[in-house]
């Protein structure tokens, strides 16, 4: 028996299937890099296969940017205490997560941080991954 194939990422996530099916994390996101986006929540949905946080952030030039930020499976997050109202429209947050491989304003959540120190943890990174600001 031969052991083949290196796991690209060690992640507690909801992966799903292609054949024109629900997407892979490894194919769409960089597991070895973290960025942080700060802004105001426009909308939050918490349904499988992924929760989605729509966020308006301000770029360095002052222009507004719209971000689509997905969580791992709500089922996994419910067991960690997340609910449909864990994040609300109007919340001002800093979201740390894994950037899209194609450079678009799309990312997967590692954690959502509030000014008062509250933190919601989604998909934890491998210990070797270093955080960075967007």
């Amino acid at each position, binding site marked *: 028996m031969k052991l083949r194939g290196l796991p690209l990422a060690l992640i507690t996530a909801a992966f799903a*299937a292609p054949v024109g099916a629900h997407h892979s994390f490894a194919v769409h996101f960089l597991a070895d890099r973290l960025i942080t986006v700060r802004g105001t929540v426009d909308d939050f949905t918490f349904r499988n296969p992924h929760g989605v946080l729509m966020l308006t952030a301000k770029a360095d030039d002052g222009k507004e940017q719209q971000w689509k930020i997905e969580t791992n499976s709500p089922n996994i997050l419910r067991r960690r205490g997340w609910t449909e109202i864990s994040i609300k429209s109007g919340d001002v947050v800093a979201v740390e997560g894994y950037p899209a491989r194609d450079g678009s304003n799309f990312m997967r959540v590692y954690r959502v941080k509030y000014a008062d120190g509250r933190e919601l943890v989604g998909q934890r990174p491998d210990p070797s991954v270093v955080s960075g600001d967007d």
Partner: protein
Amino acid sequence: MRPLTQGLRSVVVAVVLTAFAAASHAQPDLEGFWTPRLEQTQARSGQALIDELPDAAVLVNDTGAGELAAGDFAGLKLTPAAIEETRNYDFADELTRENTCNAPTAAFFMQAPFPMEVYQSDELVVFKMEYFDLVRVVHLDGRPHPPATAPHSRAGHSIGHWEGDTLVVDTTHLTPGTFMNNGFNHSDGLVMKERFRASADGTTLWLVQTYEDPSVFDGLAARYMAWTRRPGEYVYPYDCDPSYGE
């Protein structure tokens, strides 16, 4: 030979029935809630099951929390048609409303990082998966697979039997679906064989799956997975919402 007395005959019948009943319930108890154990970068608790694989089997190391990158097919040799299909695969299609809730087949969904409930009788083993609310039925009553022309499905048609402490399952009639989550798909001709075994203390369940799909890849591929029993817990509804897609 002198005929048995009525009393002795009753004793013999009782002993035989008791022995039969004991044998029929001697299988390990797999019932309950099982949550995946992530064992990719640590010692595999079910290594003994892996060691029973044929030498030629290629163990694909993408179960649970791991995935293979685009173009990494674990060293399997794909057929020319399958290579072409992977080249033409458009990952953007995965993010569409139409495809968001397309569930994988049993050749992929067992390894997903979600829990399951198992129900068991002498004639059936049923797997209720949290992932996409999928359900598998394994028939232990000796029936054969249906004809090749019978409908295929994501769970396929599974027949099984016990070999000592190991549940051996053979699955056919799977629809084409994800084989690795990177554009590598299996055909409707994939045959999957599984060996399930619980630890002696009943707290851990191991599974090794092997796959043959000669129209897609050469040889034998395999996956290993493990679960921990958590009494009193249950699977949550998945209720996939296609509105995630764009």
